[in-house]
């Protein structure tokens, strides 16, 4: 692509006084950024059938995990991560799928959104606190104010953002604030990469003055209104104003000079809610994610193959019953199918690994070397709804932060919580000061990451 330099950009907008973010690092050979992408697959797996050999280094995958074999030296297989929902009083437990699916936001669930009882008198609600993708993004934006997107949140499949489909939350702590997922990679591409390809850049320059004056007026109205409304409404308007700033950042910030950063060709658009296209949609989101990393548009992605409780029918496996339905059957035949589905999803997830490996990132390195991939699910196993023995697979070079190439059985390790795992992610991303994350009830005493991973 032709990259428009910042100077040329400014000339193009001559005569305007634009507030450009501080982007002094441009043009310098900055150290490769730290990135993380969470990859969700639904309905747990089969606890007893993960590994053929449970040895730290000479481990052998059972069939379900075999698609990851090619990456074994860059994997850290965590067996037995505990979401610690069992520590909550019965009255504060929501549904295993719903609460487990919101585990990137390991807070307690609220009430009032869905007519199932988390206990016997209350409907269940969204979790009351931010997910790590949002919180990390906020923190990174402080250090890298030129970054266009704090995080990206994608889901494959139906577009409804109900409680089962929602895996990202804005917080702050104590607040139900679900984030709607983007489900269409074609519109997401247009949104995220505006200005990266030269055609839209020309459009951008032409429209910039009109946009800027309209946004100035709207910003003034927003701040005027904030003074006149209640505290809760003020928070809503502040969020709106922050979103406005995000959009402005997208209008004015340009892509750093990274040779790997280039427009993508997505092909002809199609109905992205068509269940038979799930894998195609996922692949497009993987392409987008990798390129967004390469262009340093974001450093955090929350990707989901589906919502939790997904009842997608995997027809290519010859199935007619949905994933969730099968996961609850409990029969040997159903478990076989659950493992086949899981294997298919892991195999599909390897496309992300390939996208990351394909994009250069610094001398002799690729994005794979500078990214952490976190494969996770809402449950440990579907038929029992349990969340105390999760399988989590960390993948990628991740700047050498983790000692990869290992299988780690967490049984008996006190700090084996999902919250501990997320703290390990915080530390990898360069924030060792974060020692506590999520509701205290869900975090073993003392906080901190899972021991022995680095």
């Amino acid at each position, binding site marked *: 692509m032709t990259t428009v330099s910042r100077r040329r950009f400014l000339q193009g907008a001559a005569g305007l006084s634009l507030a450009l973010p501080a982007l002094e690092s441009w043009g310098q050979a900055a150290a490769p950024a730290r990135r993380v992408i969470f990859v969700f697959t639904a309905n747990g797996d089969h606890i007893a059938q993960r590994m053929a050999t449970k040895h730290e280094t000479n481990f052998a995958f059972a069939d379900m995990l075999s698609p990851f074999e090619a990456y074994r030296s860059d994997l850290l297989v965590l067996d037995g991560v505990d979401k610690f929902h*069992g520590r909550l009083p019965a009255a504060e437990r929501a549904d*295993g799928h719903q609460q487990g699916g919101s585990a990137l936001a390991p807070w307690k669930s609220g009430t*009032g959104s*869905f*007519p*199932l*009882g988390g206990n*016997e*008198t209350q*409907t*269940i*609600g*969204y979790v009351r606190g931010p997910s790590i993708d949002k919180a990390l993004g906020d923190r990174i934006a402080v250090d890298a104010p030129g970054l266009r997107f704090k995080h990206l949140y994608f889901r494959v499949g*139906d577009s*409804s*953002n*109900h*409680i089962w489909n*929602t895996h990202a939350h*804005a917080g702050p702590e104590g607040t139900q604030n679900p*984030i709607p997922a*983007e*489900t269409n990679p074609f519109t997401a591409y247009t*949104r995220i990469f505006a200005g990266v390809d030269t055609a839209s850049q020309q459009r951008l320059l032409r429209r910039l003055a*009109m*946009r800027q*004056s*309209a946004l100035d*007026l*709207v910003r*003034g*109205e927003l701040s005027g*209104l904030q003074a006149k409304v*209640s505290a809760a*409404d003020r928070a*809503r*308007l502040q*969020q*709106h104003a*922050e*979103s406005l700033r*995000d*959009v402005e950042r997208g209008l004015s910030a340009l892509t750093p000079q990274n040779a790997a950063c280039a427009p993508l060709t997505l092909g002809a658009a199609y109905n992205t*809610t068509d269940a038979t296209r799930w894998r195609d949609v996922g692949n497009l989101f993987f392409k987008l994610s990798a390129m967004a990393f390469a262009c340093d548009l974001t450093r955090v992605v929350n990707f989901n193959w589906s*919502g939790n*409780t997904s009842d997608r*029918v995997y*027809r290519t496996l010859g199935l*007619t019953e*949905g994933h*969730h*339905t099968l996961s*609850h*059957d409990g*029969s040997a*035949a*159903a478990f076989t199918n659950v493992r086949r589905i899981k294997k298919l999803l892991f195999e599909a997830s390897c496309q992300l690994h390939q996208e990351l490996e394909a994009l250069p990132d610094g001398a002799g390195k690729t994005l794979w070397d500078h990214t952490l991939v976190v494969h996770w699910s809402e449950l440990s196993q579907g*038929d*029992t709804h*349990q969340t105390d023995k999760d399988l989590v697979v960390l993948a990628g070079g991740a700047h050498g932060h983790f000692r990869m190439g290992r299988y780690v059985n967490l049984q008996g390790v006190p700090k084996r919580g999902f919250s501990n795992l997320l703290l390990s992610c915080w530390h990898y991303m360069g924030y060792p000061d974060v020692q506590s994350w999520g509701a205290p009830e869900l975090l073993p005493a003392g906080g901190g990451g899972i021991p022995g991973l680095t």
Partner: protein
Amino acid sequence: MQRSLAVFALFLIGCEGRALDFGQPLGAAAPGTNGAPPQDEPEPNPCTSEPSPDLTPLRRLAHEEYRHAAADLFGTTAVSAVVNAQVDGFAADPVSLGFKNSAAFLDVKSVLMQQYFDAAEAIAAKAVEALPALVPCTGDETTCATQFIERFGRRAYRRALSAAERQAFVGLYAQARIRGDDFKTAIEGVLLAFLLSPHFVYRVEVDDVGSGPVRALRPQELATRLSFLFWRSGPDDALLSAAEAGRLGTPQDVEREARRLLADPKAGRLTQLFEEWLDVDELSGLRRDTAAYPGLDPKLGEDLREEVRAFVRSVLLEGDGKLSTLLTSQHTFVNGALAQHYRLPGITGTQWTRVQQPGRRGGLLMLGGALIPHDKEARTSIVMRGLGLRTQLLCQLVPAPPPDIPSLGELGADQTQADRLAQHRSNPSCAGCHSVMDPLGVPLEGFDAVGRARSADERGRALSTLGQLTNTDVDGPVTDGLDLVTKLATSAQVRSCFVTQAFRFTSGRKETAVNACSTFRLQARFAESGGDLRELFVGLTQTDDFLFRRVAP
């Protein structure tokens, strides 16, 4: 409500045997334990001489409201097409209590802000293509622009612009001209700002200092509440004029305008309530197994939605307006494709035709679009249909399954869905919930997972439609679907629950004890009218919660 009730796995519900009250039905007598029917003694009137509205969050337009409000500002098919394309791409809002317009969750996060921005640009660009119609101008362009800003701003903001606002927009226009933009481009910039304005995107109600704790709504605020309730859009010129001329100052004025709005074709947009209530709006993504259901029209989901909308309009706007009619009337609407799907002879083409339902079928709940949103891809789901009736129609709450569900082992190859359900109703840890869900789903087994009447199940076995109403005020055995909906249509619990749903949808929030008076009056009015939905919607404009506003502390 929402699609993924799937948390209720077919085989593994374990709970304590209670269908619980999912928020007290508005104003109804508190049910006893185990979801027992309301007591006979009337609830005392909670109303006092002081109006008691609950707090109202600042309401951002729901996406369907944005769709109508933006399109109505221009009133041209060209702009409407652009609006539709843009709104269809908006990230779906969080669902709460089955609806997509819960004020607490309607904010503007980054993705939506970008989508608003793109939509505003596209709409503004399309709108100025017909500039002479939009801004007729033969004289001085600045004068024309100023007049346009005043006229358009009044519709976009749903009130006259303040002097400062007018000045800001005129300044925006002037700035563009100084920059070298032509008249058309400068107007485009003005439209962009209007469409992005918080005064368009939110339904703003601002309190003066010291006006609390409760104040009457201003006429312009009432106009906006009225138009969004009935039209899901901003007020028309007549309604704004009534407000400005002091003809919207009393509850009687409000009722008069409510009836006018309800008589307008735009009131057909109220069908959205019914679609969201029963998850019919989720059918656009309808997926079915091609082996189990070969040869389906790819537009079946859309056609089933339109059938529901046409049916609701026919009862609500053109028929007797009764809830009982809505739940039982044995007519529907089909086009050629849907007639073929239902195997109704003699109807072809794209026109929608009113027909009598053949056989024992009637009412909203037995329309294909209401039956199947929670079915599986290759079969019906007795459990999900039953759960839907419990939660959506009866406003009851069913406990979530516990974290330690016992496994029931393998499903026998020759077991039907009904057999399997009977098996786990015999398991004490499953029976509690399944005994309240399944017997409501079984009577609807006469209809398959694509909404067609049938006499055999997916495996070709004879099926039973014998069910049981329990934990309601119309308990007893039911023989089939029509018997079920006919009994439900006489239920005070169902009537009361619908008031709850209508209040939630139109208010964008859940009822609380604070608005007990509003809900008491609504219940009374609905009951006195014999369950007349039109009186319910008009009644919604006569409550403390509609006419007054609690000033936030």
